[in-house]
């Protein structure tokens, strides 16, 4: 009997510990965000630091974003055509490809790819700098590592993400056009005109850009935070990288649902 009670108490204590830890981390990451924002004056004044990081997170992600976007578009075109032609509305395949890419797939898949391509690299870099005590050395030389290392990477991610998502959507629509118009033979004029009649700039395109911007902030914040917060060991860095990718993916998918339910309820 006493053992049972002790077991229950122990279980409850474990749940409580997890909850407190979770809330503590949430508070910590929020304070970290404000610290980065306060320290980001230098990264904007010395813009070259940010441009350098834009190269690593933006330019080097171009290839994977372009190729993935193209293939997602090709598959969407094929599947959309297969379903729509049964109902005699194969012309609407352009609308389907454009809307699904602009509203959901573009920001979400670009966000997931960005988290695994650029986010993991950012975490690894900052984590390794922490492990080899480069961050501490900077601090000793009165160089704020938040301003010199973290803020430029954060802002580069925030800037790169909307552009990458737009590129993903554009490539996807091009892929959909390639497979349905060029290969299958849907009418070119109907493909574009139906798309233009249905897709609205303020509603579909702009909401997609807002989504990708939010994902950019979240992924960049998680990446720099996990790197900065990791245990300064080889194992700690590898765990931090895993956490960056897993947490980013979960947060992107959950946030996407929340944003969609506010944006597209018509």
């Amino acid at each position, binding site marked *: 009997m006493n053992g049972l009670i002790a077991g229950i108490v122990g279980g409850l204590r474990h749940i409580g510990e997890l909850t407190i830890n979770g809330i503590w981390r949430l508070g910590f990451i929020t304070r970290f965000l404000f610290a980065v924002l306060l320290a980001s004056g230098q990264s904007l004044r010395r813009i*070259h630091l940010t*441009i*350098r990081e*834009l*190269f690593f997170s*933006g*330019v080097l992600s*171009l290839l994977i974003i372009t190729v993935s976007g193209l293939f997602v578009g090709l598959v969407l075109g094929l599947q959309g055509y297969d379903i729509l032609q049964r109902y005699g509305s194969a012309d609407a395949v352009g609308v389907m490809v*454009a809307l699904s890419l*602009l509203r959901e797939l573009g920001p979400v898949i670009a966000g997931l790819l960005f988290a695994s391509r650029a986010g993991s690299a950012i975490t690894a870099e900052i984590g390794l700098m922490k492990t080899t005590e480069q961050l501490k050395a900077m601090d000793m030389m009165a160089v704020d590592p938040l301003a010199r290392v973290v803020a430029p990477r954060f802002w580069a991610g925030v800037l*790169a993400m*909307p*552009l*990458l998502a*737009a*590129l993903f*959507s*554009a*490539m996807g*629509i091009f892929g959909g056009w390639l497979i349905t118009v060029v290969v299958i033979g849907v009418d070119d004029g109907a493909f*574009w005109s139906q*798309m*233009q*009649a249905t*897709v*609205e*700039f*303020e*509603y*579909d*395109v702009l909401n997609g*850009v807002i989504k990708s911007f939010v994902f950019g902030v979240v992924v960049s914040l998680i990446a720099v935070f996990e790197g900065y917060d990791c245990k300064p060991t080889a194992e700690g860095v590898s765990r931090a990288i895993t956490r960056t990718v897993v947490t980013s993916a979960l947060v992107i998918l959950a946030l996407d649902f929340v944003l969609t339910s506010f944006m597209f309820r*018509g």
Partner: protein
Amino acid sequence: MMSRTALDLWVGIFVAIGFAALAFLAFKVANFSALNASETYRIEAPFDNIGGLKVRAPVKSAGVLIGRVQAIRFDSDSYRALVQMEIDKRFEFPADSSASILTSGLLGEQYIGLDAGADVEPLKDGDRVLLTQSAVVLEKLIGQFLFDKAAAPAAQ
């Protein structure tokens, strides 16, 4: 390590590609220029039944897009639906024009068709279109058809 100029060049290319993609989405995919740049005026029309008409549905005249439905509300005095439309300022219509709710294709979306009347006075901002035709409700149509069928033999 890359030189600074090469780095700047690559980032410049990246940003240019990103904005080119955004421009492609805005102008080729979303038809950004249509109806957004021009000014509009508001008219409203009461309908007995709007069927499946939705906010932001197109308003067409002779099949050409001239505006969009801006708001739909229920008028509790007349028990009718009041549909507010924004019409492009470039297009003027006579004050006795009529509005009807139509369907594009057999299963397509519903839109408002505006047919020009013969009045010399044009519709102005805030005016009301009085001649309206409601949406065709399939159940009512079938009910009417069955009723006529049942009534026809009795009359002979």
